[in-house]
Structures are given as C-alpha cells and as structure tokens.
C-alpha cells in the first residue's frame, strides 16, 4: 500500500494505529473461532449426546461472554479508527495550510485556488473512509482468514486444503477483473462529472435558451443524454459487477463444496459431527472479510486519489526564504524606500523563466505619491508582489532607509505595508471583521473611521445589520466598487507607512471615485503611496509618475513632463483618454 507508507511518514500516530487495528483484528479472529467452537460443542452435546440444558449451562455462559466480547471489540475498533482518522485529518489540514503559507500566494492563485481549497476540504475528508473502513478491513482480511485457516487445519486437513486453495484464487480473480473495471470505473466517474457539468451549464444558460426559444427542446436532450449515459455505463458496470460476482460465486460455491464434502465424510463416519459443524460455522467467516473488502474498494480509491493530491502539495519543495541576518531586528521605514536595479523572472514550469522585471530602480520619499503606469504585462504587479515579499528579487534589492528588506523577518516587513489588491478577497464573516483584517485589535471607532475614510460608511448604513452584516460567500454580495472601498478601508485601518494601491480597472461611479481620491490625498503626506494606476484621474494627481514598459522604467516625472518627453506615455494617455472619452 503506497498510501500507507507515505501516511506513515506524515502521521506520527500511524504506527500505533496499525498495531491497534491489527490487535483488534486478531482478537476478533479469536472470538470467532472460540464462538464457533462452543456453538459446535453445545449442539453436539445436545443433539448427539442427548445432554440436558443443565449439562451445557457452563458452555452457554462462556458462549454468551464470547459474544459480548466480540461486540466490545467491534466498538473498540470503531472508536480507535475514528480517533485516528480525526487526528490524521486535523493534522493534515494544518500541515496543508502551513505548507500553503510557505508556498505563498504566488502558488495559490487564479484557477488553481479552487482546486487547492477542494483538496484541503474534500480530499482530507475522504481519508475517513481509508482509516475507518478500508485499512481495518485490509487488516481483517489478512489476519482473520489466517487464524481461521490455522484452526480449520488443526481440525480437519481436507477442509483446510479446500480453504487454502480457494482463498488466493478469489483475490487474484478479483484483482484481474478489478483492474479492468477500475479503468472503466474511473472513466465512468469522469463521464459522470462531465454530465453533471453539462446539466449545470444548461441550467445556468436557461435564460439564454428561453430567449432563443430552445427551452422546450432541452428537456428531451436532458432525458436522452441521461438515458444514453445510463445505457453506456451499464455496459461498463456489467464488467465491474463481474468482479464482485466472482467473489460472491467463489465464496458461496466453496462454502457449498465444504458443506457437501464434510457432509459426505460425516455420513461415512470419517469425521466427527462436532468438528464438521465447527468447520461449517467457520467457512462463511473465512470469506466474509474478503467480501467486505471488495465492497469498500471504491471508497479506498477515493481516499487514495485524495491522499495523492494532499501529498502532491505537501511535497512541493519550498524555496528557502532568505533568513534575516539579525533575527529580531524591528523593521522600519522612515524616510526613503528605494528599489535598486531589481530583476525578477517567473518560473514557467519547464526550466524556462519568463522575465518580468529587468533592472527596475525607483525611489519614494515619505509624503510622496507615486503612480506606476504601463500596459498590462509591463511588470507593475510583479513590483507589487516584490514589495509584499510574495516573491524575492533575483537580482538587486529593495531597501527601506538603506536596509535591504530581506534582512527583516517577512512578517515584520509586511506589517509596514498596507495593500489594496485589485481583487480583494472577502472573508466569510461580518463587514466589521472584514475591515478588521487590517488590524484585528482595532476598536469599533477605528473601524468606522476607516470605513468613513474609504467612503464606505454610507453603504454600510444601508445594510440590514450595519457593520455586523455577514458578507462573503454566504452573505450579501458587494459590487466591485464597494469591494474596492472595503479593501481600502482595510488598508487604511492598518496604518502602515507604505500604502500599496492596485487600482481596479473597472469604473467606480464618479462620486465615490472622487471621494476616495480625496482621502488618499489627505493621508498621503505621512505615507509612502505607490499606486498602480489605471485611470487618468489618479495618474494626473500623482506627484510623480513612473512608466514601466517590458520590465523596465522607461520614463518618470510629472504628468506634464512626461507628456512632453515620453512617446510611450503619450500613447498610454491617448489610450486612457479614448477609453474615458468614448462619450
């Protein structure tokens, strides 16, 4: 079991778990054997030796104890496996989260984030089946038949041989067919999710279908597709079911063979009844674990696939983050922020790297408002990622008052940066808590103040529960503009010297845009403000504009200077003008 070995690596309790589950399986086997022994003995005594109830009372009481013991083992097994499953799941969840933190936002971005979120929830949950059912069943399948086999051999050689011969044949058959069926089953699952996706697509496009008068025809399409899918799948399933058919057939037929075999030998007096009945009682128990295993196979496939995804993430090497030279040096940014000849290239999977910044230098003084402009792909976001230390420069350095920011602890440095991302994330909690992300210990007054500065308070007042209204996934939805302002409130609440604003490309309504800009103007004197600007309004208000093109600073100056000197800037401005002057 590959997943086993890897789990052993990650999960400390795994070893104890294996021992406990193994021990419980062994106990179960013992209970089964002794239980069968006593049943056979009692029936033998009453049936053939004509004993009365009083003579078998002791045996009956022992049998009752054995039954109670067996039941207790089942309970113990459930509790032990659940305990381990719970522990493993919570351990892996945390490990995953910590690993993701190490890998950083550059790894968890875009479309991948959905899949990763899914891994940390569903894939982890799917491990339950492995720990609660599959692994204990594997143990049982190894231990119980072995123990029974020994008991049968000790009782009756011929029956033992029959069991010994049939046992390996069954799994081999099952595996042979199972392998084939698995490939098919997997395809079926893919088809299945494909079909569900198609159905979803149709539901989401229902208005469109309606407008084009196609809505009625779809009903038949859905039925036909589902039915056709059912038909083709049945063909596949027939094979898949064969595997359990063989299992079932094999075990029941060998059960029948043993019954007839010992029956006939009993007839000729070649075996005593008690032993014959003992063997008969053990035979179904012999095959039971294997049959159960077959039915739990699918659950284990899910677990294995999930575990694979989890390990894939856990095993990504984390690039050694530069360690601060002086461990706990407090990060400061007082006068000047300089970016000195910074280079950065994104790794693009195969050993190639895509150059994003090629020697960018830039200085911001406290109180300055610098706008970063350039076409998309010019390197603006890369610069922001470097300033946030989501990535580290390949060459060159970013310095705060002459100190390389890499010499600070990353968390210490980030406490100096307030960031308004282009697509801020809304957490599934209240408005107030979402703003408080900037500073969890902030008082309510400060939160309100930040919201007011970001021109968000009027909107919040219209919400049913004001600041305590739930937003995010399960709550009220915010418009793009409101989201931007909320994220600005977050950044303002943080009260960090460096304000890094990634302006949204979409249009805010004119009134709130103006208000937001006034707020930024007001706080600018005590801050370092760097705006990745997309709108003329913002650009024209900056103290200095830096034009990025293909990863390099090609011009910098005031709006007027650049209009006179930089052709690229003129071109950019012309594009923005056209954009905003379409009317």
């Amino acid at each position, binding site marked *: 079991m590959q997943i086993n070995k890897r789990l052993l690596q990650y999960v400390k309790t795994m070893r104890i778990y294996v021992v406990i589950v193994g021990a419980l399986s062994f106990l179960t086997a013992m209970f089964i054997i002794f239980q069968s022994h006593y049943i056979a003995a009692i*029936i033998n005594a*009453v*049936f*053939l030796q004509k004993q*009365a109830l009083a003579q078998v009372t002791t045996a009956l009481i022992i049998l009752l104890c054995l*039954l109670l013991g*067996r039941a207790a083992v089942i*309970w113990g097994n459930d509790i032990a496996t*659940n305990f381990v499953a*719970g522990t493993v799941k*919570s351990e892996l969840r945390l490990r995953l989260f910590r690993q*993701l*933190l190490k890998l*950083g*936002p550059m790894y968890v971005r875009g479309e991948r984030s959905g899949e*990763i979120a899914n891994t940390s*929830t569903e894939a982890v949950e799917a491990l339950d089946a492995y720990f609660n059912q599959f692994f204990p069943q594997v143990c049982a399948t190894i231990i119980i038949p072995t123990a029974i086999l020994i008991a049968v051999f000790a009782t009756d050689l011929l029956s033992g041989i029959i069991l010994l011969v049939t046992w390996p044949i069954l799994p081999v058959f099952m595996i042979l067919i199972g392998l084939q069926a698995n490939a098919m089953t997997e395809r079926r699952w893919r088809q299945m999710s494909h079909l569900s996706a198609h159905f*979803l*697509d149709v*539901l989401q*496009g229902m*208005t*469109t*279908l309606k*407008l084009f008068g196609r*809505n009625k025809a779809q009903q038949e399409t859905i039925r036909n597709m*589902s*039915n056709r*899918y059912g*038909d083709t799948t*049945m063909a596949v*399933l027939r094979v898949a*079911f064969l595997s359990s058919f063989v299992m079932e057939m094999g075990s*029941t037929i060998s*059960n*029948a063979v043993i*019954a007839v075999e010992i*029956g*006939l030998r*009993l*007839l000729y007096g070649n075996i005593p*009844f008690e032993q*014959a009945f003992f063997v008969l009682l053990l035979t179904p128990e012999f095959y039971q674990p294997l049959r159960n295993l077959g039915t739990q196979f699918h659950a284990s496939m899910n677990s294995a696939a999930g575990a694979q995804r989890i390990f894939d993430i856990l095993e990504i090497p984390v690039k050694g983050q530069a360690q601060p030279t002086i461990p706990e040096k407090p990060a400061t940014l007082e006068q000047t922020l300089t970016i000195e000849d910074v280079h950065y290239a994104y790794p693009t999977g195969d050993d190639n790297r895509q150059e994003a910044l090629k020697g960018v230098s830039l200085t911001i003084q406290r109180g300055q408002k610098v706008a970063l402009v350039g076409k998309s792909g010019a390197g603006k976001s890369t610069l922001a990622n470097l300033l*946030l230390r*989501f990535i580290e420069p390949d060459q060159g350095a970013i310095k705060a008052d002459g100190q390389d920011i890499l010499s600070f602890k990353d*968390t210490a440095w*980030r406490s100096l940066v307030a*960031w308004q*991302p282009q697509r801020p994330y809304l*957490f599934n909690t209240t408005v107030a808590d979402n703003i408080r*992300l900037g500073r969890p210990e902030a008082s309510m007054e400060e939160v309100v103040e930040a919201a007011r500065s970001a021109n968000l308070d009027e909107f919040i007042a219209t919400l049913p529960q004001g600041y305590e209204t739930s937003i995010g996934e*399960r709550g009220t939805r915010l418009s793009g503009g409101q989201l931007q302002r909320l994220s600005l409130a977050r950044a303002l609440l943080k009260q960090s010297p460096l304000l890094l604003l990634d302006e949204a*490309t979409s249009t805010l309504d004119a009134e709130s845009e103006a208000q937001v800009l006034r707020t930024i103007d007001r706080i600018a004197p005590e801050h370092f403000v760097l705006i990745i600007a997309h709108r*003329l309004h913002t650009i024209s208000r900056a103290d200095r504009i830096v034009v990025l093109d293909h990863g390099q600073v090609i011009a910098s100056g005031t*709006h007027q200077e650049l209009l006179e000197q930089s052709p690229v800037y003129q071109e950019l*401005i012309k594009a923005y*003008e056209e*954009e905003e002057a*379409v*009317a």
Partner: protein
Amino acid sequence: MSSPLRRLLQLAWPIRNWMLLAALLGSLTIISGIGLLTTSAYLISMAALHPDVSALSIAIVGVRFFGIARGSFRYLERLVSHRATFRLLANLRVWFYSALEPLMPARLLVQKDGQQHELRSGDLLRRAVSDIDTLQNFYIRVLAPPLVALVIGVLMWIFFGAFGIVFGLIFIAFYLLSSVGIPWLAHLLGQRVSREMVSTQAELESQLVDSVQGIADLIAFGQQERQAQSIERMNKKLQKLQMTAAYVSGMQGTLTNLLMNLTAWTMLLVAIPYVYRGELSGIILAVLVLGALASFEGVLPLASSFQQLGGSLEAARRLFEIVDARPAVQNPTTPSPTPQDHSIQVKDLSFRYEESEPYVLRDVSFTLPRGKCLMIVGPSGSGKSTLANLLLRFWDYQEGTMTLGGQPLQAYQQDDLYQQMSVVEQDTHLFNTTIRENLMIARKQASEEEMIEAARKAQLHDFVLSLPEGYDTAVGEQGLRLSGGERQRVAIARAFLKNTPILLLDEPTVNLDAITERAVLDAIKALRQQRTTIMVTHRLAEMEMADEILVLHHGRIVERGTHASLLQSEGLYWRMWQQQRARTVEAV
C-alpha cells in the same frame, strides 16, 4: 410521512417496477444465503445420523443450488438497481429542469430596496446539481434496504415459526429490535451531535476555503497565524464531535452484531430443552442457529440507510425550495395575437416587485415607432434594467400598459415574443461547447455562410480565425476562455443570425473596459440598422444614435429628448455628461 419524503417517492414512482424488481432480487440474494447455511446445517446434521446417501441428496442439491443462486441474484440485483438509478437520475433532471424553467430568470434574482441583486445563482444551481446527484442514490441506498429487510423479516418469522411459535417470537423480537429499535436509538443519541458536526464541518470548510483563496490578503495583512489558530481550534472541535459520533455509531454496529448473535444464542437456549424432551428433532438445532445468524444480513445495511435518509431529505428539501416558487409570469392560454407592426408603446407604467416593496418604476410612458432607437439612461438603481426585464416579460407589470405591435405584451406567449426580439445582455452565457454551436443556437437551420456572415458583421470572424480550431474551438466552462468583449460579440453575432425586427440591449458594455467597449459599440451600430431598438446604458456613449433618450431617476422619467436637446436643457443628463467628460478634461 413528511412532505419531502412523499414528494420524493412521487418522483420515483415512474420507476417503481424496476425498484420492486431490484428489491425482490435483493431479497432473493439474502434468502439464498440463508438457504445455503440452513441446508448445509441440515445436511451435516442429517449426515451425523448416518442415514442412506439418498436421504441426503435433496439437501446436497439444495446446498449447491443456493451456492450458485446467491451470486447470480446479487449480480442481477446490481444490474437492475443501477438501471433504476439511472432512470431516476434522468427523471430527476428532467423534473428539475421543467420545474425551474417557468421560474427563470425571475427565481434567481432577488429584489431588495427596489433593486435587483443576482442571487448567487451559480452557487445555487451548482448546489442543486449536486443535490440531484445525491438523490439518484436515494433508491439503492435509502429505499431498498428497508424493503428488503421487511421481506426477510416476514419470511424468516414464518420460517422460524414453523418450528415452534416461540422461535418465531424470539426471532421477530430481536429482528425488530435491531432493525427498528437500534437505528432509532442511534438517531436519538446521534441527532444533536451530527447536526453540530455538519455545521462545524461547514464552518471549518468555509474557513479553509477562505484561507486558501484569501491567502494573499491574509499574508499581506499578517493574519496567517491567527487564521492557523482558528483552524486548529475548529479542528479540535470537529475531532471531539467526530469521537462523540463514533461512540454512537460504534454502539450501533456493536449492538447489531450482539443482537444477531444473541438471537442464535437464545434460540439455542430455548431449543435445548425441547430437543432433550424429544419434542424437537436435534437436526433442527444447527438449522436454527445458522438460520438466525444468516437472516441478519437483511438488517446490516439499515444503519447507513437511516443515515443517508437525512441527507437525501435535506437535498430534496433544498430542491423543492427552489422550484416551489410561484412563476413570476403566466403564459396566456390563448394563442399569441399577430403584431400589426414592430412598434413598442408603454403607457403610464408603474411597477414594483412585491406589494411591500417601493415602486421601481412610476408612470413611465414612451412610444417607439418601428425602426427607431430609444436609449434609456440613468444612474444605477434608477430602474432602467427593470424596464428592460419588463419588456422581456421576465416579470409582469401591474399598472399601465405595454404594447408590442399594438397588442398588449401579456397577450403573447413568451416564446412568440422572443421570436421577435434579439437581446444582448450585460453578461452573455456561453455554453460549454464550440463557438459554432454557441452561434447556431440563435438559428438552428442557419447555413455555414450565414453564420460566418453574422460573425463577420459582429467583428468576431477574424478573432475566431485566429483560434487554433476556428469555429470548432471549445469556449470552455461558461465561455471563460473568451474575454468579455469576445463574449459580447458572440451575443451580437447571435442577434445578427437571429435577425429579428426588435433589438433589446441591456447595458451590453457595462463589464468591458473602454477600448473593448468602443469595438463592441461599433458592432452594435452595425446591428442596429432598421431595427426597432431599445438600449439601456449607464455610460453616455454613441448617444447620437438615439432618436429619443429617456433619463430615468428613481423610477421616473425626469428628462427626455435627443442628445442635443438634452445637453441644451442642462439638467441631469447634462450633469452626467459633464461628469463623464470632466475626468478626461481634468486629466489632459
């Protein structure tokens, strides 16, 4: 019987024969298992008395028969039950689609303060689809096990009763206890814990999703440790709950096993004196014990059946909740009238979504002659999109009149109405298929040339040719492989292809950046030719195109006129115009 369960059974009604057949086969499988063990027991008990071989022959045949029958019945049962499942899935899908269809799109839009908000429709529908996937197993996992358990219970009661009333009583008492009593007890004990577990799990899940998707924000604001602690706390809580649940579920498995063995044990205990007194043949002793053990196979799947019942009912409840809305619009029972021309007239129209809500539109009147263009502008929340939705009859208005071609809008069947209109909405839904099929949806019988011509007019053709597979390129889930501008151009090409006399454009460029907007507006200008056009817009672009402009504010028409006349009167329109220009002017 609770209502969702009854309705669920109604949905499964058409496949009842398949289900009964599967239940029958399932019962036969277990009966074969019981038969195998009891005839085996009988066989060796008989053999122990050393009779003639011929006395054993029936038992031997029986053992062989049951040995083979069990596997075969199981196999058949699987085939039939899966067939039933697929039928059920198809039925559920068609049912849900048909039930939802008349409700769309109104059902997925909620109104608040007179404004529309799209309910997270993607999430809602995604949930619905997975709920339907859950329900497809309703039969196999939930409905079949109790049926089979019932059949086995009755038959074995009779079987044991045949050896003596007391054996029948012992059996049925233990059987009922383990098939009804224990699941019920487990339900009572586990109810609170499982509910708490579901909510804790949901909370943990949403925290994990938040942590992953919001990781940049968390790290940038230095909140990762706090989040990790919060996850850890939630983890601990969940773990504790899982343990509590394990005690209960473990108890269930334990007691079921114990009761099964106790049945055999009690039978033995009771039978021994009978055998001793010679009132019962000793041969039967082994039969009773093995028969009792084997018949509990019918009870074992009940535990999970009870557990899944809750989930199935929950899924069903959610689905019913979606479809149990009153349609916003009823189709008239009479066939649609023939429109006299392609003009639109609206008179004294007032509208609100609910009685309790404020009016969204008040006393709106306008006349749009055939082939003319009307633009509706106004700040967001002014009611302009509502007006567009009323024209599409997504809702019905309460006061005033709306006529199309001289006939009231409500007299038209929705389908006939849409045959006369092409619509370009804010967001264009593209189906996850090729560009060709996405275009051809507008007119199924269109030729290749017509389609290309439409694409060319919509300025889509060159873009399509630049794609690796041209018109056969798949657009991806929800058309995500295309940009917003490209998607809008697909919508315009669809409109060209549909070629209707009336055109309704509802903020077709609202989600586009300005440069793309320019190009899309050019395509719209081409589309506009000769068609009666209503365009709702928030940006004042291409306003010269309009023969009349309505300025909406708080649901009322506050100004109307042409672009030039409105600018002259220096009202709201003029202010909007100035505001829009100001940004540019200030910048340059």
